[in-house]
C-alpha cells in the first residue's frame, strides 16, 4: 500500500517555474492519439510538456516552434502527458 519515491522521480531534471512567470522554450510539437488527442512539446533539452491554449496554428504535428507560456500546476488532464504548458504566444521555425 505504501508507496515510495517522489512523484515524477526518475524523469529528466525538471525546472519548475513560478506559476505566474512566463518561460520561453524551443522545441517540437508532437501529436498523440489517445482517442481524444493530446499535444506534447519536446524541448531541445529533452523536457516534455503537454501543450494547451494559445493559437490553433501551433497545433500541427511535427512543427518546430519557440513557445512562450507558463506552467499550470493547478491543472490536470485526460491526456496526462506531463507538466501542462499553457501557451501565450509562439513562433514557428523552419524545420
Amino acid at each position, binding site marked *: 500500500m505504501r*508507496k515510495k519515491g517522489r512523484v515524477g522521480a526518475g524523469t529528466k531534471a525538471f525546472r519548475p517555474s513560478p506559476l505566474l512567470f512566463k518561460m520561453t522554450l524551443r522545441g517540437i510539437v508532437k501529436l498523440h492519439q489517445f*482517442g481524444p488527442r493530446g499535444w506534447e512539446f519536446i524541448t531541445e533539452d529533452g523536457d516534455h510538456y503537454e501543450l494547451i491554449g494559445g493559437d490553433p496554428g501551433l497545433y500541427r504535428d511535427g512543427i518546430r516552434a519557440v513557445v512562450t507560456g507558463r506552467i499550470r500546476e493547478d491543472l490536470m*488532464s485526460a491526456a496526462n502527458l506531463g507538466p501542462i504548458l499553457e501557451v501565450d504566444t509562439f513562433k514557428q521555425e523552419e524545420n
Partner: protein
Amino acid sequence: MRYNLYVIAGCLVGLLLSLPLTGMAQEGADTAEEVVVNFKDHLPPEEIEKIAHKYGIHLAYNSVFSKPEALTRFSKSGLSPEELQRLLQALAAEGTVEYTEPNYLYQAYWVPNDPLYDKQWHMRQIDMPGAWEKANGKGVIVAVIDTGIAYEEYQDRKGVYHRVQDLANTQFVEGYDFIDDDTHPNDDNGHGTHVAGTIAQSTNNGIGVAGVAYGAQLMPLKVLNRFGIGNLADIAEAITYAADHGAQVINLSLGGFFPSKTIREAMAYAHRKGVTLVCAAGNSGRRGVSYPASDPHCIGVSAVGPDGTLAPYSSYGPQIDLAAPGGDTSKGVMNGVLQNTIGFMDPGTDRYEYFQGTSMAAPHVAGTAALVISLGVKNPDEVEKILKATARVSAEKNGNEKYGAGLLNAAAAVSFLRPDIFAPPPTLLPGRLKYLLAGLLLAWLYFRLRREFPLTRKLPRLLFWLGLLWASSGLFFVDLFPLSGILGHSAGSLARAFPDLDYPLWGRISDLNPLFHSALFPVLLLVTLLSTKSMSRFALGFTLGLASHLLVDTFLSSVSVAYIPGDFILDKLWLLGNALFSFWLAYLAGKP
C-alpha cells in the same frame, strides 16, 4: 452417564463444523466420461501401449502437447463402478503411472451476445468470461470523474446531448457537472463516455460491446472541459462528492505532473469512507508516475497492449500497483480498447472507437474492483489486496515498476473469495499469540475477581482450558500432528479459533461474521451445559476465551464486522459490548 452424552453431543457438533471444510472434491466424479492417466514424463509410447494392452483399454494422448508429459486418457463407458475402481487401483500400482483422475467436462464460459464483443480483446485479456460467471457489479456505485458521460437526452445553450446507444440499459445515479455547476454532467469530449463504457457498458443486450461491471451504477462527475482539462479544486470536490453520495469506487482517468494537497486530502477522506480509488498512471512513456496515481490511497494503473507487455506510452515507476489493458494503436487501430462513445468534441454523434491510454486501463481495474465489492468486500485495502494477489505476475526484469503486482485478472479476483482455494494455511503461534495472551490474561483476571480457583478436579480443569484456548486462539498445537484427509480437515478446523470459523463456513475474508463474533455461542453453551459439573467448566472457559478474542478484535485489529452500518466505531462497539457481556456471563456462571 449424562456427561458422556454431552461429550458425544460435543463431538457431533465438532464433526458437523468440520464437514463443510472437507470440500466436495469427489462431487461429480461419476459425471466424468473419461479418466486421465498421467505416466512418468517422457515414457515411450511403446510402454504406454503395453499398459493399454494389459488392461484392455484404449489410451489416447490428450493432445499433441501431451507426448513429453505422457498425459493420456481413456473412456470409462462400459465399465461398472466396481470394475473402474479395480482398474484405477491396478493402474495406480503400476510403477510408470504418476496418477489417474476423472477428466471432468468443464462447462464453456458465458459469452455476451454483443456483436462487437469479438473485437474486445481486452476483456478476454483480463479473463472477463470467467469473472462474469460470478459477478456483474450489481449494487455497486462507480463514480467516473472525467469529461462527463453521454447519459441523457438534454439540451443547453452549449449544445444538444444524448445517451449513447450502448449505455441504454446501464443504470445511473445523479452526478454533478463541476465545469458548468449544474446537475447535467454530459460528455462533450468523448473521453469520459469511453471510460464509463469499459466499466459498465450495457452488456448482453444484442448491440455494441460489453463492459466489465455492467450491473453496477455509474455516477457521472464532470471535472474536465471539452478539451479534457480541469482544475485541482474541481477534481478534489468531485472526489468528496462521490464519497459523500455513496460511490464505492472512483475512477480517475486523469492526472498531472504535480502532487496536490487538496486532492490528497480528498482522497484520504474517500479512502476513510471505504471508497476504492483507481487512477491512470499517465501517458508520458517514461519513468515517473503522474498524480494522483502516485498517491498511496490510489491504485495506480499502467497500460499494456494486446501482447501483455507495457504499452510504449505508459508511464511507469515504483508507484504502479497494477497493469491493465490500455491498448497499443501503434500496432494497428484494432489493438486499441473498443467502447461506445460520442465523436471527439461532438456530443450529437454516436460511435464505437478504439482508444488507447492508461485512461483506458484504469476503468478495467475500477470495474473489477466493483465486481469484488459486489461480492461483499467492503474495505478498499482489502479490495486492493485481492486485485494484487490475483494479478498475473510478470517475469520481466524490473516487472514491478512496469506492472506493479502484475496484469489484472478479473476471473481470479472474483474467485478469490473461495476459501477452498485461498484459505490461508493454519499457522502456529505467531499470528495468534496476542489472542492466546489475551485469553490467559482474562483467565487470570477472572480468577482474581472470583478470588478462587474452582478447578480442583482434573477433568473440569482440562475442559476449562480447552474451552478457553479454542475460543481465544484455537487449539493451534493440533497443527503439529501430520494428519491428512477428513481427520486433517477436522483437526484444521479445531486449530482455528472458534470465532474465526466464520471464514471457512461463511466464505468472506474481508469482514467478521457478527454472530460468530458475539455472545450468542457462549450463551447457548452456558444454557445447555451449566447444570453439568465438568462440561459447565468447558462452557465457562469457552465464554472467557471468546470474550478475550473479541477484545483483541476490538483493540488490536482493523477488520470490520459485516452487516453493521456506519463507520467502524459501531463495529468496535459491537465487539466490545459482546466481549464485556460474555465476561459478565462467565462471572455470573462461575459462582460455585
